[in-house]
């Protein structure tokens, strides 16, 4: 794909000792890039690497140290990225038992919060089923991940909020252990939670208000069904203000020794015909649902950042029949989507999916032993 004025495009990727890969070198020029190979060759690892370049950590909750190839002393990644016509030279170094270092055009970043957002990215993965099946924390994590890329202040507010929350909960425990404990600091913690929490609340609400229609559109296209799907932001803050919540919950908090109200209790509810999708959606419906969700978050990121983010799709055919998959590819071929990386085990199936548009996709076959890439 000719790198578009308003996209981020990964041109070059060189890696040393990243997970199972000793050395690889990719030059990229097409809109679609696919890593194809058998299970265990390291396709997901390559997508995780690109995820890391955007969010400075693994998608799979691994520590930085766990990303270094076993028995090696370091991991190193170099990438060249075109962003709005500008070239960014990225270098990531992860030395064994030391902190990682990230630099862009030679300048080293001190804080992850300041770097995140440089390369906007959305991932579609088989793990997405956790968004529907898992606890509310999974859903908050998803939206926080996107909002953090939009706005440094969001991530900082969230980190502040979590730290104050921890202090507040510790104070409640102290009080339970030693009744004489002075708890006048609660007032301060409350005001600071309200300050950071309001910022977070407003941003979360904003996504939901502005993107439900987009989400419903994507769902309709992918599933080819006229189903009534909805998402809904469930927050205590929608009906009560912070002061009221803290006041009403004080006694409860003292007994439970934790903070009952706040944006750390937010949830995002998804329904299909008014019923929770977790219980009533089929596996195919749920997959269409999470894809539509990710695509609408992609659209949100695009609008907020003014560039087309990178999209990763791990295991392209996961839980999707051919028809839904073709709908997905058709959407991605449009101008509203930028560079796409995907993985699959079956090259024939993949080529067939791009039938007639074979020139749009570059396929890298990944083998276990060989380290050549073309």
């Amino acid at each position, binding site marked *: 794909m000719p790198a578009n004025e308003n996209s981020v495009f990964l041109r070059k990727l060189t890696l040393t000792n990243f997970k199972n890969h000793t050395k690889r070198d990719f030059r990229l020029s097409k809109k679609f890039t696919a890593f194809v190979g058998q299970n265990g060759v390291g396709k997901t690892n390559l997508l995780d690497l690109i995820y890391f370049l955007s969010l400075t950590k693994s998608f799979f909750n691994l520590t930085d140290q766990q990303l270094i190839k076993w028995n090696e002393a370091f991991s190193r990644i170099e990438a060249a990225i075109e962003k709005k016509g500008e070239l960014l030279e990225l270098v990531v170094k992860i030395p064994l038992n030391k902190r990682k270092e990230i630099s862009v055009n030679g300048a080293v970043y001190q804080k992850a919060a300041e770097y995140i957002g440089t390369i906007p990215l959305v991932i579609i993965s088989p793990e997405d089923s956790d968004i529907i099946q898992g606890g509310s924390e999974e859903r908050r994590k998803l939206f926080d991940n996107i909002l953090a890329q939009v706005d440094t202040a969001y991530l900082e507010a969230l980190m*502040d909020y979590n*730290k*104050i929350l*921890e*202090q*507040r909960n*510790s*104070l409640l*425990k*102290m009080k339970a252990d030693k009744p*004489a*404990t*002075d708890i*006048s*600091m609660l*007032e*301060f*913690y409350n*005001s*600071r939670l309200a300050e950071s929490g309001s910022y977070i609340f407003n941003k979360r609400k904003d996504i939901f208000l502005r993107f439900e229609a987009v989400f419903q559109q994507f769902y309709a296209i992918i599933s080819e069904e006229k189903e009534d799907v909805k998402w809904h932001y469930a927050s205590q803050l929608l009906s009560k203000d912070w002061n009221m919540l803290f006041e009403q919950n004080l006694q409860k908090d003292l007994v439970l020794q934790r903070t009952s109200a706040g944006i750390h209790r937010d949830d995002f509810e998804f329904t299909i015909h008014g019923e929770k999708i977790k219980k009533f959606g089929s596996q195919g419906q749920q997959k269409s649902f999470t894809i539509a969700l990710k695509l609408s978050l992609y659209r949100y990121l695009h609008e907020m950042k003014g560039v087309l983010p990178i999209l990763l799709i791990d295991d392209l055919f996961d839980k999707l029949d051919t028809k839904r998959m073709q709908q997905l590819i058709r959407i991605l071929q449009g101008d509203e989507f930028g560079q796409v990386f995907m993985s699959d085990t079956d090259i024939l199936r993949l080529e067939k999916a791009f039938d007639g548009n074979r020139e749009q996709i570059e396929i890298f076959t990944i083998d276990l032993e060989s380290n050549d890439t073309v």
Partner: protein
Amino acid sequence: MLKYSSKLIADAVTEFTKLPGIGEKTALRLVIHLLKQDKEKVKQFGDVVTKMRHDIQYCKTCHNISDHELCSVCSNKMREQSIICVVENFRDVIAIENTEIFRGTYHVLGGIISPIDGIGPEQLNVESLLMRVKEQGVKEVLMALSPTIEGDTTVFYLSKRLQPFGITVTTIARGVAFGGELEYTDELTLARSIATRVPYENALVKSSTS
């Protein structure tokens, strides 16, 4: 550990390696250096260290480290008793003293409020600060604490406790790393932040007394 033909040397090396940042090789170099010195000089070295640890006390007024009951700042008649600078620990006192800009006295809290670490106001030198304000004719309390959640909590708490006395509470300019890290802040930045201190404003402190 390396092999030593002398147990005396080995023991001395072991003691030095207990110091922060000293490995065995450096420790051996220091021990060899001491070996080359006159016995008298080395005795003095040992005596000074022992005496330092034995005789050091905490100032009974401000809790700064001190050679006497009262530290050199508190006992200096030239220092203004009407302004107290509140700091986390005595390293902060050293850093501020080196700027030579502050002419008042100090109050060392011995930490900042952090329930996660089990530190509440009860663990800090708070009551003695209130006593001083009450009895010493204090006009201003300057909070020189770290710009972190814990530092801010402490400033809030103390301001609230000081509210009934009707004195001025000020804080140093933001952006200066205080509390443990203050020793790494350059003197000029530190001096400027003290000179440009601002009155502490928090609606919560005001509303609760009106």
